[in-house]
Protein backbone atom coordinates (compact mmCIF):
# COMPACT_ATOMS: atom_id res chain seq x y z
CA UNK A 1 0.00 0.00 0.00
CA UNK A 2 0.94 3.62 -0.36
CA UNK A 3 -1.13 6.12 1.52
CA UNK A 4 -0.39 9.81 1.54
CA UNK A 5 -1.95 12.15 4.07
CA UNK A 6 -1.48 15.89 4.21
CA UNK A 7 -1.61 16.49 7.93
CA UNK A 8 -1.65 20.26 7.62
CA UNK A 9 -3.40 22.15 4.85
CA UNK A 10 -1.60 22.67 1.58
CA UNK A 11 -2.81 25.36 -0.78
CA UNK A 12 -6.19 26.69 -1.75
CA UNK A 13 -5.88 25.28 -5.28
CA UNK A 14 -5.99 21.80 -3.80
CA UNK A 15 -9.24 21.92 -1.86
CA UNK A 16 -11.30 21.06 -4.92
CA UNK A 17 -10.16 17.43 -5.10
CA UNK A 18 -7.38 18.08 -7.60
CA UNK A 19 -5.09 20.92 -8.57
CA UNK A 20 -7.13 23.64 -10.22
CA UNK A 21 -5.55 26.95 -11.12
CA UNK A 22 -7.26 27.75 -14.42
CA UNK A 23 -11.03 27.75 -14.88
CA UNK A 24 -13.14 28.48 -17.98
CA UNK A 25 -11.38 31.71 -18.91
CA UNK A 26 -8.12 30.19 -20.16
CA UNK A 27 -9.62 27.52 -22.47
CA UNK A 28 -12.05 30.10 -23.85
CA UNK A 29 -9.15 32.47 -24.52
CA UNK A 30 -7.18 29.68 -26.19
CA UNK A 31 -10.15 28.88 -28.41
CA UNK A 32 -10.79 32.50 -29.37
CA UNK A 33 -7.06 33.09 -29.96
CA UNK A 34 -6.95 30.06 -32.26
CA UNK A 35 -10.10 31.20 -34.06
CA UNK A 36 -8.56 34.65 -34.62
CA UNK A 37 -5.42 33.04 -36.00
CA UNK A 38 -7.57 30.96 -38.36
CA UNK A 39 -9.57 33.98 -39.54
CA UNK A 40 -6.42 35.96 -40.22
CA UNK A 41 -4.79 33.09 -42.10
CA UNK A 42 -7.90 32.68 -44.29
CA UNK A 43 -8.29 36.39 -45.09
CA UNK A 44 -4.56 36.78 -45.68
CA UNK A 45 -4.34 33.74 -47.97
CA UNK A 46 -7.43 34.91 -49.88
CA UNK A 47 -5.64 38.21 -50.60
CA UNK A 48 -3.33 36.24 -52.88
CA UNK A 49 -6.20 34.61 -54.76
CA UNK A 50 -6.58 36.09 -58.24
CA UNK A 51 -10.33 35.75 -58.63
CA UNK A 52 -12.16 37.05 -55.59
CA UNK A 53 -15.74 37.34 -56.83
CA UNK A 54 -17.84 34.63 -55.23
CA UNK A 55 -15.64 34.81 -52.14
CA UNK A 56 -16.93 38.04 -50.64
CA UNK A 57 -16.85 36.77 -47.08
CA UNK A 58 -13.49 35.07 -46.88
CA UNK A 59 -11.71 37.63 -49.05
CA UNK A 60 -13.18 40.65 -47.32
CA UNK A 61 -15.90 40.72 -44.71
CA UNK A 62 -14.40 38.01 -42.50
CA UNK A 63 -11.42 40.16 -41.53
CA UNK A 64 -13.62 42.39 -39.36
CA UNK A 65 -14.23 39.45 -37.04
CA UNK A 66 -10.54 38.99 -36.17
CA UNK A 67 -10.05 41.94 -33.78
CA UNK A 68 -13.56 41.44 -32.32
CA UNK A 69 -12.96 37.78 -31.48
CA UNK A 70 -9.43 38.47 -30.31
CA UNK A 71 -10.74 41.20 -27.99
CA UNK A 72 -13.28 38.79 -26.53
CA UNK A 73 -10.39 36.40 -25.92
CA UNK A 74 -8.36 39.15 -24.28
CA UNK A 75 -11.33 40.01 -22.03
CA UNK A 76 -11.52 36.35 -21.06
CA UNK A 77 -7.79 36.34 -20.28
CA UNK A 78 -8.17 39.52 -18.27
CA UNK A 79 -10.94 37.89 -16.25
CA UNK A 80 -8.59 35.01 -15.48
CA UNK A 81 -5.66 36.98 -14.14
CA UNK A 82 -5.86 37.59 -10.43
CA UNK A 83 -3.74 40.72 -9.99
CA UNK A 84 -5.74 42.75 -12.47
CA UNK A 85 -4.32 46.21 -11.82
CA UNK A 86 -0.91 44.88 -12.79
CA UNK A 87 -1.97 43.60 -16.22
CA UNK A 88 0.27 46.22 -17.86
CA UNK A 89 3.26 44.33 -16.52
CA UNK A 90 2.95 41.98 -19.51
CA UNK A 91 4.29 44.86 -21.57
CA UNK A 92 7.17 45.99 -19.41
CA UNK A 93 9.16 42.84 -20.07
CA UNK A 94 9.94 40.33 -22.75
CA UNK A 95 10.84 36.99 -21.22
CA UNK A 96 12.30 34.83 -23.94
CA UNK A 97 11.63 31.55 -22.12
CA UNK A 98 7.98 32.33 -21.35
CA UNK A 99 5.42 31.36 -24.01
CA UNK A 100 2.95 33.70 -22.32
CA UNK A 101 5.33 36.62 -22.85
CA UNK A 102 5.72 35.73 -26.54
CA UNK A 103 1.94 35.49 -26.77
CA UNK A 104 1.35 38.91 -25.22
CA UNK A 105 3.70 40.58 -27.69
CA UNK A 106 2.37 38.65 -30.68
CA UNK A 107 -1.16 39.73 -29.71
CA UNK A 108 0.02 43.31 -29.73
CA UNK A 109 1.31 42.91 -33.30
CA UNK A 110 -1.80 41.06 -34.44
CA UNK A 111 -4.09 44.04 -33.75
CA UNK A 112 -2.50 46.56 -36.18
CA UNK A 113 -2.11 43.86 -38.83
CA UNK A 114 -5.75 42.85 -38.55
CA UNK A 115 -6.86 46.51 -38.76
CA UNK A 116 -4.77 47.00 -41.90
CA UNK A 117 -6.33 43.84 -43.38
CA UNK A 118 -9.79 45.25 -42.65
CA UNK A 119 -8.90 48.59 -44.23
CA UNK A 120 -7.61 46.84 -47.35
CA UNK A 121 -11.13 45.73 -48.26
CA UNK A 122 -13.37 47.99 -46.14
CA UNK A 123 -14.64 50.10 -49.06
CA UNK A 124 -16.00 47.02 -50.82
CA UNK A 125 -16.91 44.84 -47.84
CA UNK A 126 -18.40 47.39 -45.48
CA UNK A 127 -19.20 50.61 -47.40
CA UNK A 128 -21.64 51.70 -44.67
CA UNK A 129 -19.06 51.22 -41.94
CA UNK A 130 -16.44 52.98 -44.07
CA UNK A 131 -18.55 56.12 -44.49
CA UNK A 132 -19.58 56.04 -40.81
CA UNK A 133 -15.98 55.82 -39.61
CA UNK A 134 -15.00 58.48 -42.11
CA UNK A 135 -17.69 60.84 -40.82
CA UNK A 136 -16.81 60.10 -37.21
CA UNK A 137 -13.11 60.69 -37.80
CA UNK A 138 -13.71 63.85 -39.80
CA UNK A 139 -15.30 65.30 -36.68
CA UNK A 140 -11.98 64.57 -34.97
CA UNK A 141 -10.10 65.83 -38.05
CA UNK A 142 -8.54 62.41 -38.50
CA UNK A 143 -10.30 61.53 -41.74
CA UNK A 144 -7.25 62.39 -43.88
CA UNK A 145 -5.14 59.93 -41.91
CA UNK A 146 -7.88 57.30 -42.19
CA UNK A 147 -8.10 57.80 -45.93
CA UNK A 148 -4.34 57.57 -46.30
CA UNK A 149 -4.21 54.40 -44.19
CA UNK A 150 -7.02 52.86 -46.23
CA UNK A 151 -5.28 53.70 -49.49
CA UNK A 152 -2.01 52.36 -48.12
CA UNK A 153 -3.69 49.09 -47.08
CA UNK A 154 -5.45 48.71 -50.43
CA UNK A 155 -2.20 49.30 -52.30
CA UNK A 156 -0.17 46.98 -50.10
CA UNK A 157 -2.84 44.37 -49.43
CA UNK A 158 -0.64 41.44 -50.45
CA UNK A 159 2.37 42.65 -48.47
CA UNK A 160 0.24 43.11 -45.34
CA UNK A 161 -1.29 39.68 -45.90
CA UNK A 162 2.18 38.18 -46.35
CA UNK A 163 3.36 39.68 -43.06
CA UNK A 164 0.16 38.61 -41.29
CA UNK A 165 0.43 34.92 -42.22
CA UNK A 166 3.54 34.06 -40.14
CA UNK A 167 2.25 36.09 -37.19
CA UNK A 168 -1.17 34.41 -37.35
CA UNK A 169 0.48 30.98 -37.52
CA UNK A 170 2.58 31.95 -34.49
CA UNK A 171 -0.59 33.00 -32.65
CA UNK A 172 -2.32 29.70 -33.48
CA UNK A 173 0.66 27.58 -32.45
CA UNK A 174 1.23 29.69 -29.34
CA UNK A 175 -2.21 28.79 -27.99
CA UNK A 176 -0.97 25.18 -27.87
CA UNK A 177 2.61 25.88 -26.76
CA UNK A 178 1.24 27.86 -23.84
CA UNK A 179 0.14 24.50 -22.42
CA UNK A 180 2.77 22.17 -23.88
CA UNK A 181 5.61 24.15 -22.31
CA UNK A 182 4.56 23.01 -18.84
CA UNK A 183 6.71 19.97 -18.10
CA UNK A 184 5.00 19.71 -14.74
CA UNK A 185 1.68 18.70 -16.35
CA UNK A 186 2.30 15.50 -18.33
CA UNK A 187 -1.00 15.65 -20.23
CA UNK A 188 -0.03 19.00 -21.75
CA UNK A 189 3.66 18.33 -22.18
CA UNK A 190 3.43 17.31 -25.85
CA UNK A 191 4.74 19.32 -28.77
CA UNK A 192 1.71 18.09 -30.74
CA UNK A 193 -0.51 20.61 -28.93
CA UNK A 194 0.92 23.54 -30.95
CA UNK A 195 0.07 22.15 -34.41
CA UNK A 196 -3.13 20.57 -33.07
CA UNK A 197 -4.47 23.89 -31.77
CA UNK A 198 -3.36 25.67 -34.95
CA UNK A 199 -5.25 23.23 -37.16
CA UNK A 200 -8.23 23.27 -34.83
CA UNK A 201 -8.28 27.09 -34.86
CA UNK A 202 -8.10 27.09 -38.65
CA UNK A 203 -10.87 24.51 -38.83
CA UNK A 204 -13.07 26.63 -36.52
CA UNK A 205 -12.44 29.70 -38.70
CA UNK A 206 -13.33 27.72 -41.82
CA UNK A 207 -16.48 26.57 -40.03
CA UNK A 208 -17.28 30.19 -39.34
CA UNK A 209 -17.00 30.93 -43.07
CA UNK A 210 -19.36 28.03 -43.77
CA UNK A 211 -21.88 29.41 -41.28
CA UNK A 212 -21.73 33.00 -42.52
CA UNK A 213 -21.31 32.47 -46.26
CA UNK A 214 -24.23 32.17 -48.65
CA UNK A 215 -22.20 31.80 -51.81
CA UNK A 216 -22.10 28.29 -53.29
CA UNK A 217 -18.60 28.46 -54.73
CA UNK A 218 -17.16 29.75 -51.46
CA UNK A 219 -19.04 27.17 -49.41
CA UNK A 220 -17.95 24.35 -51.68
CA UNK A 221 -14.26 25.33 -51.53
CA UNK A 222 -14.27 25.78 -47.77
CA UNK A 223 -16.14 22.54 -47.18
CA UNK A 224 -13.29 20.77 -48.97
CA UNK A 225 -10.74 22.72 -46.94
CA UNK A 226 -12.55 21.81 -43.73
CA UNK A 227 -12.54 18.11 -44.61
CA UNK A 228 -8.76 18.27 -45.06
CA UNK A 229 -8.37 20.17 -41.79
CA UNK A 230 -10.59 17.76 -39.83
CA UNK A 231 -8.63 14.81 -41.18
CA UNK A 232 -5.37 16.52 -40.20
CA UNK A 233 -6.76 17.29 -36.76
CA UNK A 234 -7.75 13.65 -36.33
CA UNK A 235 -4.20 12.54 -37.24
CA UNK A 236 -2.70 15.09 -34.83
CA UNK A 237 -4.95 13.87 -32.01
CA UNK A 238 -3.89 10.30 -32.76
CA UNK A 239 -0.21 11.32 -32.69
CA UNK A 240 -0.80 13.19 -29.44
CA UNK A 241 -2.31 10.06 -27.88
CA UNK A 242 0.51 7.85 -29.23
CA UNK A 243 3.01 10.27 -27.69
CA UNK A 244 1.43 9.89 -24.25
CA UNK A 245 1.01 6.13 -24.59
CA UNK A 246 4.66 5.54 -25.48
CA UNK A 247 6.17 7.85 -22.87
CA UNK A 248 7.11 7.27 -19.23
CA UNK A 249 4.77 6.13 -16.45
CA UNK A 250 3.54 9.60 -15.52
CA UNK A 251 2.50 10.30 -19.12
CA UNK A 252 0.79 6.93 -19.39
CA UNK A 253 -1.07 7.77 -16.18
CA UNK A 254 -2.14 11.07 -17.76
CA UNK A 255 -3.48 9.20 -20.77
CA UNK A 256 -5.73 7.06 -18.56
CA UNK A 257 -7.79 10.20 -17.90
CA UNK A 258 -9.25 9.78 -21.39
CA UNK A 259 -8.94 6.01 -21.71
CA UNK A 260 -11.19 4.94 -18.87
CA UNK A 261 -10.70 7.86 -16.46
CA UNK A 262 -12.92 10.77 -15.54
CA UNK A 263 -12.68 12.60 -18.87
CA UNK A 264 -13.17 9.59 -21.14
CA UNK A 265 -16.81 10.23 -22.13
CA UNK A 266 -16.34 13.97 -22.67
CA UNK A 267 -13.17 13.48 -24.76
CA UNK A 268 -14.48 10.75 -27.06
CA UNK A 269 -18.07 12.02 -27.35
CA UNK A 270 -17.62 15.79 -27.58
CA UNK A 271 -14.23 16.07 -29.28
CA UNK A 272 -13.78 12.93 -31.37
CA UNK A 273 -17.38 11.99 -32.17
CA UNK A 274 -19.28 15.29 -32.40
CA UNK A 275 -16.29 17.58 -33.02
CA UNK A 276 -14.52 15.54 -35.69
CA UNK A 277 -16.16 12.37 -36.96
CA UNK A 278 -19.78 13.48 -37.41
CA UNK A 279 -18.99 16.87 -39.04
CA UNK A 280 -16.51 15.12 -41.33
CA UNK A 281 -19.20 12.65 -42.33
CA UNK A 282 -21.79 15.41 -42.82
CA UNK A 283 -19.44 17.48 -44.96
CA UNK A 284 -18.55 14.48 -47.12
CA UNK A 285 -22.24 13.73 -47.60
CA UNK A 286 -22.93 17.37 -48.41
CA UNK A 287 -20.21 17.39 -51.06
CA UNK A 288 -21.82 14.32 -52.59
CA UNK A 289 -25.06 16.23 -52.99
CA UNK A 290 -27.02 15.08 -49.95
CA UNK A 291 -29.39 17.69 -48.50
CA UNK A 292 -28.14 18.37 -44.98
CA UNK A 293 -28.59 21.50 -42.92
CA UNK A 294 -25.49 23.42 -44.09
CA UNK A 295 -24.94 25.05 -40.71
CA UNK A 296 -24.95 21.82 -38.70
CA UNK A 297 -21.47 20.48 -39.50
CA UNK A 298 -19.68 23.82 -39.01
CA UNK A 299 -21.56 24.43 -35.74
CA UNK A 300 -20.35 21.03 -34.51
CA UNK A 301 -16.79 21.85 -35.58
CA UNK A 302 -16.83 25.09 -33.59
CA UNK A 303 -18.31 23.38 -30.53
CA UNK A 304 -15.70 20.60 -30.90
CA UNK A 305 -12.89 23.17 -30.99
CA UNK A 306 -14.19 24.76 -27.83
CA UNK A 307 -14.51 21.38 -26.07
CA UNK A 308 -10.99 20.45 -27.19
CA UNK A 309 -9.54 23.40 -25.25
CA UNK A 310 -11.78 22.91 -22.22
CA UNK A 311 -11.07 19.21 -21.87
CA UNK A 312 -7.33 19.50 -22.47
CA UNK A 313 -6.97 22.39 -20.01
CA UNK A 314 -8.90 20.39 -17.42
CA UNK A 315 -7.03 17.12 -18.05
CA UNK A 316 -3.65 18.82 -17.64
CA UNK A 317 -4.62 20.05 -14.21
CA UNK A 318 -6.01 16.68 -13.12
CA UNK A 319 -2.70 14.94 -13.54
CA UNK A 320 0.66 16.02 -12.15
CA UNK A 321 3.88 14.48 -10.91
CA UNK A 322 2.72 14.61 -7.31
CA UNK A 323 -0.63 13.21 -6.22
CA UNK A 324 -1.07 16.14 -3.84
Amino acid at each position, binding site marked *: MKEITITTNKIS*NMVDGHFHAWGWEVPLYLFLGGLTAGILIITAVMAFRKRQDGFKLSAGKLSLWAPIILSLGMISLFLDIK*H*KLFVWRFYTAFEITSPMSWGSWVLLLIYPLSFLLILATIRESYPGLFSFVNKFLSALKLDVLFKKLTEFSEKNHKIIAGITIPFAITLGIYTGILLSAFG*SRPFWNSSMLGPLFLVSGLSSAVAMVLILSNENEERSLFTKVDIALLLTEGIFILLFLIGLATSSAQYKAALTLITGGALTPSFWIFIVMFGLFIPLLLELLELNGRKINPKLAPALVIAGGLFLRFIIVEAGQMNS*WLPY
Partner: protein
Amino acid sequence: MKKYGMVIDTKLCVGCGACVVACKTENDVPEGLHRDWLVEEVTGKFPNLHMEIRSERCNHCSDTPCVSSCPTGASHIKKGSNIVKVDPNKCTGCQACVVSCPYNARFVMPEGYVSKCTFCDHRVEKGESPACASVCPTHAIVFGDLNNPMSRVSRLLRARKFKTIIPEAGTDPNVYYLI
Protein backbone atom coordinates in the same frame (compact mmCIF):
# COMPACT_ATOMS: atom_id res chain seq x y z
CA MET B 1 27.48 32.56 -4.95
CA LYS B 2 25.56 30.96 -2.14
CA LYS B 3 23.47 27.94 -2.96
CA TYR B 4 21.00 27.63 -0.16
CA GLY B 5 19.40 24.34 0.59
CA MET B 6 17.48 22.56 3.25
CA VAL B 7 18.12 19.13 4.66
CA ILE B 8 15.19 17.58 6.49
CA ASP B 9 15.68 14.48 8.60
CA THR B 10 12.66 12.21 8.19
CA LYS B 11 13.96 10.08 11.07
CA LEU B 12 13.68 13.04 13.44
CA CYS B 13 10.49 14.70 12.17
CA VAL B 14 7.51 13.87 14.36
CA GLY B 15 4.97 15.84 12.32
CA CYS B 16 4.21 18.33 15.10
CA GLY B 17 3.45 21.13 12.62
CA ALA B 18 5.58 23.75 14.39
CA CYS B 19 7.27 24.56 11.06
CA VAL B 20 3.90 25.27 9.48
CA VAL B 21 2.77 27.52 12.35
CA ALA B 22 6.13 29.32 12.50
CA CYS B 23 6.01 30.03 8.76
CA LYS B 24 2.48 31.37 8.91
CA THR B 25 3.36 33.63 11.82
CA GLU B 26 6.70 34.83 10.48
CA ASN B 27 5.42 35.57 6.98
CA ASP B 28 1.89 36.60 7.86
CA VAL B 29 0.44 33.95 5.52
CA PRO B 30 -3.36 34.41 5.27
CA GLU B 31 -5.84 31.87 6.55
CA GLY B 32 -6.25 28.84 4.33
CA LEU B 33 -2.93 29.35 2.56
CA HIS B 34 0.38 27.68 3.39
CA ARG B 35 3.98 28.06 2.31
CA ASP B 36 4.90 24.75 3.90
CA TRP B 37 2.92 21.67 4.80
CA LEU B 38 3.30 18.20 6.32
CA VAL B 39 2.98 14.96 4.43
CA GLU B 40 2.61 11.56 6.08
CA GLU B 41 3.37 8.74 3.70
CA VAL B 42 2.62 5.18 4.78
CA THR B 43 3.95 2.38 2.58
CA GLY B 44 4.17 -1.42 2.88
CA LYS B 45 1.77 -4.15 3.90
CA PHE B 46 0.49 -4.74 7.40
CA PRO B 47 2.23 -5.55 9.71
CA ASN B 48 5.35 -4.38 7.84
CA LEU B 49 4.42 -0.76 7.46
CA HIS B 50 6.74 2.19 7.08
CA MET B 51 5.78 5.73 7.84
CA GLU B 52 7.64 8.79 6.68
CA ILE B 53 6.76 12.29 7.76
CA ARG B 54 7.99 15.14 5.60
CA SER B 55 7.85 18.87 6.05
CA GLU B 56 7.51 20.10 2.46
CA ARG B 57 7.78 23.48 0.75
CA CYS B 58 9.09 25.10 -2.42
CA ASN B 59 12.27 23.22 -3.40
CA HIS B 60 14.07 26.33 -4.66
CA CYS B 61 15.04 24.24 -7.65
CA SER B 62 18.20 24.87 -9.65
CA ASP B 63 16.21 24.47 -12.87
CA THR B 64 13.18 26.68 -12.30
CA PRO B 65 10.16 26.23 -14.59
CA CYS B 66 8.32 28.82 -12.47
CA VAL B 67 10.89 31.48 -13.36
CA SER B 68 11.19 30.55 -17.02
CA SER B 69 7.41 30.48 -17.53
CA CYS B 70 6.77 33.87 -15.90
CA PRO B 71 5.86 36.41 -18.61
CA THR B 72 6.78 39.49 -16.58
CA GLY B 73 9.91 38.58 -14.66
CA ALA B 74 7.95 38.70 -11.38
CA SER B 75 9.05 35.17 -10.59
CA HIS B 76 12.79 35.49 -10.22
CA ILE B 77 15.94 34.20 -8.56
CA LYS B 78 17.27 36.52 -5.89
CA LYS B 79 20.62 38.01 -6.85
CA GLY B 80 23.63 36.34 -5.29
CA SER B 81 21.69 33.25 -4.27
CA ASN B 82 19.40 30.55 -5.57
CA ILE B 83 16.34 31.66 -3.60
CA VAL B 84 13.26 31.73 -5.83
CA LYS B 85 11.01 34.68 -5.12
CA VAL B 86 8.00 36.56 -6.51
CA ASP B 87 7.88 40.33 -6.91
CA PRO B 88 4.23 41.26 -6.17
CA ASN B 89 4.62 44.53 -8.08
CA LYS B 90 5.40 42.68 -11.28
CA CYS B 91 3.03 39.73 -10.82
CA THR B 92 -0.17 39.75 -12.91
CA GLY B 93 -1.61 36.69 -11.20
CA CYS B 94 -1.68 34.77 -14.49
CA GLN B 95 -0.64 31.63 -12.57
CA ALA B 96 1.75 30.35 -15.24
CA CYS B 97 4.23 29.72 -12.41
CA VAL B 98 1.58 28.03 -10.25
CA VAL B 99 0.81 25.64 -13.10
CA SER B 100 4.49 25.09 -13.96
CA CYS B 101 5.52 23.96 -10.46
CA PRO B 102 5.56 20.13 -10.25
CA TYR B 103 5.40 20.45 -6.45
CA ASN B 104 2.26 22.59 -6.42
CA ALA B 105 4.11 24.86 -4.01
CA ARG B 106 2.71 28.19 -5.18
CA PHE B 107 -0.58 29.86 -4.42
CA VAL B 108 -2.45 33.09 -5.07
CA MET B 109 -2.71 35.61 -2.25
CA PRO B 110 -6.09 37.25 -1.58
CA GLU B 111 -4.62 40.42 -3.14
CA GLY B 112 -4.12 38.53 -6.41
CA TYR B 113 -0.36 38.02 -6.65
CA VAL B 114 1.40 34.69 -6.34
CA SER B 115 3.27 33.77 -3.20
CA LYS B 116 5.44 30.95 -1.93
CA CYS B 117 8.25 29.96 0.46
CA THR B 118 11.17 32.40 0.33
CA PHE B 119 13.46 30.39 2.63
CA CYS B 120 12.70 33.39 4.90
CA ASP B 121 15.33 35.36 2.98
CA HIS B 122 14.73 38.39 5.23
CA ARG B 123 16.02 36.27 8.13
CA VAL B 124 18.79 34.67 6.07
CA GLU B 125 20.11 38.16 5.23
CA LYS B 126 20.60 38.69 8.95
CA GLY B 127 22.40 35.38 9.33
CA GLU B 128 19.41 33.62 10.85
CA SER B 129 17.78 30.36 9.78
CA PRO B 130 14.33 30.30 8.18
CA ALA B 131 11.50 30.34 10.74
CA CYS B 132 10.58 26.69 10.14
CA ALA B 133 14.14 25.49 10.79
CA SER B 134 14.61 27.70 13.84
CA VAL B 135 11.53 26.41 15.67
CA CYS B 136 11.79 22.70 14.82
CA PRO B 137 11.81 21.02 18.27
CA THR B 138 13.70 17.94 17.03
CA HIS B 139 16.15 19.91 14.86
CA ALA B 140 14.94 17.91 11.88
CA ILE B 141 15.16 20.93 9.55
CA VAL B 142 18.65 22.19 8.76
CA PHE B 143 19.30 25.15 6.50
CA GLY B 144 22.58 26.24 4.95
CA ASP B 145 24.88 26.81 2.00
CA LEU B 146 25.26 23.74 -0.17
CA ASN B 147 28.29 25.30 -1.87
CA ASN B 148 30.17 25.40 1.42
CA PRO B 149 31.58 21.90 2.05
CA MET B 150 31.87 22.66 5.78
CA SER B 151 28.22 23.72 6.27
CA ARG B 152 25.95 21.42 8.25
CA VAL B 153 23.77 20.73 5.22
CA SER B 154 26.79 19.64 3.16
CA ARG B 155 28.11 17.47 5.96
CA LEU B 156 24.73 15.82 6.51
CA LEU B 157 24.42 15.06 2.81
CA ARG B 158 27.89 13.50 2.84
CA ALA B 159 27.19 11.41 5.93
CA ARG B 160 23.62 10.22 5.39
CA LYS B 161 21.43 8.64 2.74
CA PHE B 162 19.06 11.15 1.23
CA LYS B 163 16.45 11.66 -1.45
CA THR B 164 14.63 14.51 -3.12
CA ILE B 165 10.94 14.61 -4.01
CA ILE B 166 10.10 13.60 -7.59
CA PRO B 167 13.59 14.17 -9.00
CA GLU B 168 12.20 12.72 -12.25
CA ALA B 169 10.33 16.02 -12.79
CA GLY B 170 13.79 17.32 -13.70
CA THR B 171 13.90 20.56 -11.75
CA ASP B 172 16.97 19.74 -9.62
CA PRO B 173 15.41 20.50 -6.21
CA ASN B 174 17.47 21.89 -3.30
CA VAL B 175 15.42 20.48 -0.42
CA TYR B 176 16.81 17.11 0.62
CA TYR B 177 15.23 14.46 2.84
CA LEU B 178 17.46 12.24 4.98
CA ILE B 179 16.11 8.66 4.95
